[in-house]
């Protein structure tokens, strides 16, 4: 048996296997949970690198689960877009697990740590599954897997307000998943198939476009709730700010991206052939909602006093940039949108890690108390500044490049969208510079000598430094991701 043929399914199964083994072995020894989680996420990260190279060579890698051929069996389809995002999920997921090693004792009691590591692997596995699958119903199942583990991870600390935040998240997001199931049934009724490629071949045969559009609109609403697109964002600020920091990283940097990815997948791959004549019908409201998300998210972020809440509102704005790029549907804007997925994932993960490190070291959450942090935690604040400048779109950092592509694409369509992108960047400058100004230039009220020793343990410093360097490096070496993204976009728009 040639194992290399089974890499796609192995990548997902190894995470789920880890998720089941962790609580079982945790009964015997709680110390073993962390190594299992590191091992399974590391193996899946290595596998996703291997898959990326094989996708670069062959363009699309297909895997038939259990050997049943589509349209009857479940198919895993890995094209450049899903392979690229799978690598991002694998790397940031691995870093989040590593970061948890020292951080977890800070917020979660030892009794719950096996459950915590198990849920971490489950949420990463669910996201990988949603990225790889080529089957509409399987996409729903994977979405539910990472959503339910997300609700549990928000509530796991049981600190004040976390239960309610988790409940609100559950209530709204399960409306979204139910819509997804409903429209999956709708599309199955129309075409008699659940395989995405099969559906895209069958849809042009449907006479009545309105039936098809209603299915698509339901699907988009479902995934828009998952990705917290304005005005469906109300669950996000509470859930993302109250979760333990490594979980905030996963939710804010990755989970909402999977919603955006699913919208891309549905609009371009499943409905691509049918929509070339009428994408405007859905694209126009989507692009205006995305523009509103940019402005509203940035405005709210300015007025936050809690650092993690500010970062959560900034995520609402950035999902707006991504979906603006997706909904404008030109080569440039789609390239910018997908590139911004990478940059926001790197930048926001780094910022939430920094916020977690600051809470771990000093216990400060309020931005006004940040005075003197630059001398207490120089490396963390430097990484914070780099990641923040990437999200603002300051030239050497990678966020500039993606906003540049987005701006070019937006200008072709309508100058208002370009104005929205520029205003959004200015507003993000206001809220990030507020934090940096207090941390670097505000006078220190009282010299605090209580905290001594190294700045942070290695397991917390490493993810922060890696992500900060990456968000600088992809700005200089932007060819690396852009070549891959352009290959992905060409494939998406060729339908």
């Amino acid at each position: 048996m040639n194992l290399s043929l089974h890499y796609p399914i192995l990548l997902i199964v190894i995470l789920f296997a880890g998720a089941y083994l962790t609580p079982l072995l945790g009964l015997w020894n709680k110390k073993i949970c962390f190594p299992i989680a590191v091992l399974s996420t590391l193996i899946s990260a290595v596998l996703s690198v291997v898959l990326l190279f094989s996708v670069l060579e062959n363009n699309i890698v297909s895997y038939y689960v259990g050997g049943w051929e589509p349209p009857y069996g479940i198919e895993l389809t890995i094209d450049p877009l899903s392979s690229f995002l799978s690598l991002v999920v694998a790397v940031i997921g691995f870093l989040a697990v590593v970061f948890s090693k020292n951080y977890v004792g800070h917020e979660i009691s030892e009794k719950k740590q096996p459950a915590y590591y198990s849920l971490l692997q489950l949420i990463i596995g669910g996201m990988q599954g949603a990225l790889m699958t080529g089957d509409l119903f399987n996409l729903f199942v994977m979405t539910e897997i990472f959503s339910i583990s997300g609700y549990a991870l928000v509530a796991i600390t049981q600190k004040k307000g976390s239960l309610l935040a988790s409940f609100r998240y559950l209530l709204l997001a399960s409306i979204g998943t139910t819509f997804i199931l409903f429209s999956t049934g709708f599309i199955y009724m129309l075409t008699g198939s659940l395989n995405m490629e099969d559906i895209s071949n069958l849809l042009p045969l449907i006479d009545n476009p309105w039936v098809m559009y209603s299915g698509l609109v339901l699907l988009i609403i479902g995934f828009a709730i998952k990705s917290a697109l304005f005005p469906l964002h109300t669950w996000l600020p509470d859930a993302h700010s109250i979760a333990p920091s490594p979980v905030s990283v996963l939710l804010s940097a990755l989970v909402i991206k999977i919603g955006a990815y699913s919208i891309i997948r549905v609009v371009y791959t499943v409905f691509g052939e049918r929509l070339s004549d009428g994408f405007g019908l859905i694209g126009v409201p989507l692009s205006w909602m995305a523009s509103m998300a940019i402005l509203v998210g940035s405005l709210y972020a300015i007025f936050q006093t809690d650092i993690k809440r500010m970062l959560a509102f900034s995520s609402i704005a950035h999902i707006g940039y991504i979906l603006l790029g997706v909904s404008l549907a030109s080569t440039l804007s789609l390239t910018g949108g997908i590139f911004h997925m990478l940059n926001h994932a790197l930048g926001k993960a780094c910022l939430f890690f920094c916020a977690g490190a600051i809470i771990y070291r000093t216990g400060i959450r309020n931005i006004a108390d940040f005075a003197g942090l630059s001398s207490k935690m120089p490396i963390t604040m430097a990484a914070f500044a780099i990641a923040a400048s990437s999200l603002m779109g300051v030239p050497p950092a990678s966020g500039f490049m993606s906003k540049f592509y987005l701006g070019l694409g937006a200008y072709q369509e309508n100058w208002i969208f370009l104005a929205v992108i520029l205003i959004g960047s200015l507003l993000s400058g206001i809220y990030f510079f507020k934090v940096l100004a207090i941390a670097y230039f505000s006078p220190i009220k009282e010299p605090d000598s209580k905290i001594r020793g190294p700045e942070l343990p290695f397991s917390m410093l490493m993810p922060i430094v890696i992500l900060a360097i990456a968000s600088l490096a992809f700005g200089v070496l932007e060819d690396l991701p852009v070549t891959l993204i352009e290959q992905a976009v060409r494939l998406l728009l060729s339908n």
Partner: protein
Amino acid sequence: MIELLPPNLPYFASIALLLIGLYAMITKRNLIKKIMGLNIFSTSVLLFLIAMGYREGGAPPIEVEGVTHYVNPLPHALVLTGIVVALALTSFALILIINIYKEHKTLDSEKLTKL
């Protein structure tokens, strides 16, 4: 319009249930009633899926000689998965509600927002 109703009754019923569930989730103040609304909401979709697979006079989908008219088995597989997912969701939500009650001593969502 009205002559469309009898053959499509399950679909109309599922849409009615969907709206009832959504209404309960939005307007009810008690958290447990919100979860009941969520259950009605997700069950309506299951009804929709089952109605889709039904064929008038169809045999069970097991191959028997001489029978050519079967019901569609695939929606049943989807519904089974959907039931499992809804079960997991409901049990988790109820555990959350128990803990919320322990913490706040109320299940009234409007009182909870003020906290």
